């Protein structure tokens, strides 16, 4: 049976690798999408930050003519002094204010502008620095220094695993989501094309009149869709790795520098095992729905709600910590996401992996048997 299934598999793969458009959408697009997003957003964010730092702001200062404050502000922010009506940022000290007395300082700014937000933050920092200078002056009158008031030092110790500290938690948040989405997206195109697409093209009936068993045909198609799903997901993963090492945007987008992150061999093996079982699952589900549908359009309408559920699961679990609720490792897709989270954070257990793989393979086998049953019944043709 496997030999016959491989005939179908090889033909589909050959066709895929000769079709540039499908090849692009299956492998190249997932590979490029994350680096493009990272480069694009990193570049935009970088240029916005640079623009905010280099701009000259119209600032009005009322109620305080202390040159110390003006010097601190000039050192922090390029600005021109204007009247309050034409100011981007207004700094208002109360009437009768004199350096050293308690007062409310009102900083007015437009929060809809990122540049103004940046300038306002700088102004707030300048006010704090000014307050420190004034406090130092007051303490000097009593022969004290600000350092004399500093009696406690806080030392923070991060007890998280090394993997988490070097960015594993960031990967645990992002990677499972993207991998699951692209696993499903990859399955969708290939799965519908090879089932309902064949029906639309009228070639399925001819495919069934030969010496190969219909079960072999069903398995050949599932194997092919699984391969496409895996390649699509791996291309996404590779794209993410490329993004991590990009000089532009990586730190802006992800926070910690992920270049120091090293995944251990057993964790990588767990991710691969999870990925393979999930690919087989999504491929079987999509192939089944494609077999039920009469046309690719109808097939899409069956698969899309499921795709939305997968996205929803991906989004809702994105910010969740790894779970100890064992039952979740029996729920397809949810188990995949949590298993990968654990693997990236160096917390994965063999028990969870076994549950995930067994659960995914069980559901995949169930769907594959249903596909096989459909192929062996007349129902597969009633819609041709």
């Amino acid at each position: 049976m496997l030999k016959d299934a491989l005939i179908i598999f090889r033909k589909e793969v050959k066709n895929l690798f000769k079709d540039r458009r499908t090849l692009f959408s299956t492998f190249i697009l997932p590979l490029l999408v994350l680096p493009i997003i990272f480069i694009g957003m990193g570049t935009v964010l970088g240029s916005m930050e640079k623009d905010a730092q280099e701009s000259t702001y119209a600032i009005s200062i009322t109620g305080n003519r202390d040159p110390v404050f003006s010097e601190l502000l000039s050192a922090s922010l390029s600005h021109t002094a204007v009247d309050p009506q034409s100011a981007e940022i207004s700094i208002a000290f109360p009437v009768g204010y004199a350096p050293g007395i308690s007062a409310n300082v009102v900083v007015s700014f437009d929060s809809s502008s990122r540049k103004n937000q940046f300038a306002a933050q700088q102004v707030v920092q300048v006010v704090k620095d000014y307050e420190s200078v004034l406090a130092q002056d007051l303490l000097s009158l009593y022969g004290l220094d600000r350092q004399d008031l500093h009696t406690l030092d806080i030392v923070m110790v991060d007890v998280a695993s090394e993997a988490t500290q070097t960015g594993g938690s960031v990967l645990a948040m992002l990677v499972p989501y993207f991998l699951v989405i692209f696993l499903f997206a990859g399955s969708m195109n290939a799965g519908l094309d090879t089932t309902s697409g064949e029906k639309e093209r009228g070639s399925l009936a001819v495919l069934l009149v030969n010496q190969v068993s219909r079960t072999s045909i069903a398995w050949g198609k599932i194997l092919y869709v699984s391969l496409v799903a895996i390649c699509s997901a791996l291309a996404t993963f590779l794209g993410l790795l490329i993004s991590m090492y990009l000089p532009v945007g990586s730190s802006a987008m992800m926070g910690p520098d992920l270049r120091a992150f090293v995944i251990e061999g057993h964790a990588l093996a767990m991710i691969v095992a999870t990925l393979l079982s999930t690919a087989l699952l999504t491929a079987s589900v999509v192939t089944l729905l494609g077999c039920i549908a009469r046309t690719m359009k109808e097939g899409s309408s069956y698969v899309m709600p499921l795709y939305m559920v997968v996205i929803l699961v991906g989004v809702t679990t994105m910010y969740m910590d790894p779970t100890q609720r064992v039952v979740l490792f029996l729920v397809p897709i949810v188990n995949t996401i949590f298993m990968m989270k654990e693997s990236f954070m160096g917390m994965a257990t063999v028990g969870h992996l076994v549950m995930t793989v067994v659960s995914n393979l069980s559901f995949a086998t169930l769907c594959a048997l249903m596909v096989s049953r459909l192929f062996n019944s007349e129902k597969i043709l009633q819609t041709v």
Partner: protein
Amino acid sequence: MIQVQDLTKTFTTRKSSKQVLGGISFTANDGEVFGLLGPNGAGKTTTLRTIATLLQPTSGRVLVDGMDIVAHGRAVRYRIGFLTGEMKLTGQLTGREMLEFFGNLDHMETARIQQRIGQLSLDLDMERFLDTPIAKLSSGMTQKVSLAISLLHEPHVIIFDEPTSNLDVLAVKIVSDFIRSAKEDGKCVVLSTHILSEAERLCDRIGILYEGRLLCEGPVDAVLEEHGARDLEQLFFQLVQQQKVPLC
């Protein structure tokens, strides 16, 4: 030879049941073209798919070269070449690659596949485009590849479901020439069509199918003479009116 004996077919869903074939019988002999004629929805495709082992009879029997299609499905499939007009070959594989694929599906030896591809390439004049991706071929060229696929394993029985639908004039000629050639080679050809003039040109014997019932069956000339009709079109309308079935 194909023998269809009192064949019925009913499609059942959870909500309803529809009888598509109501007990039809006919025989298609070797070295002749048998045409199954009738309007869309008459049951032609269902009949041909049943002969091709794609559907199972609800009752009755179908024998292909003496073998029951239910009991000997795989052996029957090796003896038949099946082609449907609905099939639109496409994709980036070349005609040669498609033929190799279908040869493998029929469990043919590699050397024999290559020998048959060479022969069919000559017979159907396909050498020029056999290594061109199918997506880049004209409809006539694609039809030749489809024909070659159905003939690759040298079937004795050829089943064509609406072989000329959606084809241009040149492609229709390719199919017609092929059918005549298969008949001369002693093969049993069964085709379905709703184009009555086409049937008159190609078929030795016909069966007119209407709403799952075979209204008449026999050699074209004999059937026309028996009913006093000048052509198949007139015969068809006469028979339908005799059934007191309103035409719409």
